[in-house]
């Protein structure tokens, strides 16, 4: 990656955010509320107070992982839209393992839960991965629809075999103490945040410095070249999807053991941690540091949404609106004038290369 493009790159991430907030403000005005006040409450508490910020970091942990899960596949031009399903599947069975496995040792119990959760994430990611690798089935359509199937399966499991008998609503049994992550201090943050951070650093290293990361980048930029130089693209797709599924499963497990403790039908919220991950991957523009910042920022938005509900009359659904607007605007390179100039120069260079090869 060449230097000196930071300016437009950053702006291309920040402008869509501002635009989305702008439109959100108009909507808030339309229902007769003060957008500045709403945004102030939303972001102020979750970013500017110590306790609020630590809470933000707590909620950022799973987002960081789902963002990473999607970003790594984007890198190879693979669209794993099934992160949501993989996360739910992993989270669900991590919860089951946490509730039913009578392991006394807290560390061992947690490790087992992580193994189950990540294993489930990988397992569910293998369906589209194998279909893509061996039958060339479009992974995007498969992952998108299998999400719906997974939600239905888990709905069945949580209302049927694994339902907590005494509860008034549909949920699975609460995980045992030995599987729970406890809060550190007065905020909600738990040790899971550091687990997530560790996983994040590990993946960063893999993508930047290892042969696997190099091959994934090559597949994304030129799959024909990757195949011709012996990278066995289909195998790498499977490995990559497994990595993505494991990260999603890890996110689900962590969210289960550090926040929810049981599976409910709204476990992952709306629009779901997997979808949040896509926004984060786009916001971070495929750079690890960007993903970290985006995860924290978006987590602040989400925790702020609860405050908005508490202190104003703006429904917290406004956050979902702002989020989808951000994704929409992020799909386009905004700085067309300046950025476009650069791109145009590049195109000319390309044309020159063409002219030279003729």
């Amino acid at each position: 990656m060449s230097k000196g493009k930071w300016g437009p790159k950053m702006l291309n991430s920040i402008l869509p955010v501002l635009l989305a907030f702008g439109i959100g403000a108009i909507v808030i005005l339309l229902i007769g509320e003060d957008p500045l006040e709403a945004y102030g409450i939303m972001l102020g508490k979750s970013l500017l107070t110590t306790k609020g910020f630590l809470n933000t970091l707590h909620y950022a942990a799973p987002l960081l992982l789902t963002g990473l899960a999607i970003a790594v596949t984007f890198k190879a031009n693979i669209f794993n839209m099934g992160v949501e399903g993989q996360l739910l599947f992993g989270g669900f069975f991590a919860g089951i393992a946490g509730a039913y496995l009578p392991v006394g040792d807290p560390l061992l119990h947690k490790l087992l839960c992580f193994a189950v959760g990540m294993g489930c994430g990988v397992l569910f990611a293998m369906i589209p991965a194998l279909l893509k690798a061996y039958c060339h089935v479009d992974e995007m359509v498969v992952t998108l629809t299998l999400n719906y199937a997974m939600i239905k399966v888990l709905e069945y499991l949580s209302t049927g075999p694994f339902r907590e008998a005494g509860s008034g609503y549909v949920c699975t049994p609460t995980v045992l103490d030995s599987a729970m992550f406890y809060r550190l201090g007065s905020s909600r943050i738990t040790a899971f945040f550091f687990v997530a951070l560790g996983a994040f650093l590990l993946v960063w290293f893999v993508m930047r410095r290892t042969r696997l990361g190099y091959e994934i980048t090559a597949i994304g930029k030129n799959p024909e070249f990757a195949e011709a130089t012996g990278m066995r693209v289909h195998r790498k797709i499977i490995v990559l999807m497994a990595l993505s599924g494991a990260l999603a499963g890890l996110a689900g497990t962590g969210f289960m053991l550090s926040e929810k403790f049981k599976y409910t039908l709204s476990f992952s919220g709306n629009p779901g941690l997997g979808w949040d991950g896509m926004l984060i991957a786009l916001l971070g523009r495929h750079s690890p540091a960007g993903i970290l910042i985006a995860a924290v920022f978006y987590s602040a938005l989400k925790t702020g949404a609860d405050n908005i509900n508490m202190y104003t009359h703006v429904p917290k659904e406004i956050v979902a609106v702002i989020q989808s607007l951000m994704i929409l605007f992020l799909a386009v390179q905004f700085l067309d004038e300046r950025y476009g100039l650069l791109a145009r120069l590049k195109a000319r260079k390309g044309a020159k290369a063409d002219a030279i090869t003729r």
Partner: protein
Amino acid sequence: MSAIRTVNLTRTFDGFVANDRINLTVEPREIKCIVGENGAGKTTLMNMLYGVLKPTSGQIYIHDEPVAFRSPLDAMEKHIGMVHQHFKLVPSLTVYENILLGVELNRKWRGRPTPLIDRDAEIQTVEALIETYHFQLDPREKVQNLSVGLCQQVEILKMLYRNVSILILDEPTSVLTPQEVDVLIRKLKDLRDAGKTIIVITHKLREVMALSDSVTVIKQGRVVGDMRTSQTNERALAQMMVGRDVVLTVQNDGCCACGRHPAYSVHNLTAENEAGKQVLHNISFDVCQEEILGIAGVEGNGQSELVKALSGLMTVTGGSVTLGGQDCTNDWPDELRRKGLGIIPEDRYAQGLCMEMSIADNCVAGHCEAVSRFGVFQRRKVKACRDRYLQKYDIRVAEAEGTVSQLSGGNAQKIIVARELENRPQVILACQPTRGVDIGSIEFIHSQLLQFRNAGNAVLLISSELSEVLSLSDRVLVMYNGCIIGTVNPRTTTAEEVGLLMAGAKPSSGEESA
């Protein structure tokens, strides 16, 4: 009055001057050839005449009238048509649909046009057009089923239907068989006699002599010669094009090594394409140690499929391949590399290099073991590898940390050559190793291949550039229609004789000398 005149036409890209004050005059009703080396700026010039590119400075006059084209549409309005090197046809549509694309005829109902396309009228119109210009085409055939030569005819007809008076053809003969070239030359002369002005861009001098009325030579973006064809000859043109005397500089003068131990054997190889049609028929040959085996042939006669099969990008339906005694039929590319095969692929920017990745990353592609430990790259070693290649192979880069997209064709190709040769293979599969490469790099790459052969290794050279195959190889096979149609000794065979084989003419017994 001239058909086209340019005054000081200049075009720069990022400070690189592609066309430098070009003054070109094309008389009406003549065939003008514009010749020059790869990268001399011919295509840039044509793109300006056709409105694809805007000139940086200078002026174009069409029939003595100054014009400023904003797009090819403006050029078409002035009755200029262009047949691009890469055809602008829609494969799934028929010939008539392609010719009438954008000017469809609608069915009429009570004298008023309806939204429906009138297929019958369209077919009739195109049939009449084909008749007028004496082409041989079935208007109902889908373009995807046509040979390249016929596709070109469709392109030309498309322009003729739009009533062009000036027709530009970019490298029209590069994909044609010698026979198809003859047909094209005849057709173009007919068109000239019918009153059209024709400009042909080419670097094949023999065709220039056979075809044109006048010729303009371009070198490094400048006009270096402009004369009537009758007043010049091939040799003089070649000298002007390159700036010195060139007649195939690197010549294989080693002795033929046949009869030694075969390093690479292909036995009865067959392969099918996606439609299930057989595209390779029982291909068999041996490449011996210390031998360069050339495969000549017009493009599209199975060479691409052969290369794909041999380089692990396509599985075969039958036959076997052995390398140094080991079977490697249907091996994946990484296995082939491990067994000692180096591959210089057909299309360097598709299979050989990743343009958006750094030069260093491209240098280690496919050979990561040497520069990594436990799957982790050792940056120092990667850089050392890159610097070694850059120096040893004289690869000129503006910025060593930059990407491959910043390199010229020749330097990019040299990265592939360096990468493949430096990893000590026993056999090199060299496909179109010098396509679109400047003369200096051609020389360099040729001498590297010879040196590699002299060290006791085998080279399989597949190229559609006949002169390259004949001058480098110890033995030459000719491919036609998915078969090896003959073997010739390049020392004793003329290009004309090989040309006949390339066109599918069965060899008489005397030609099978090798």
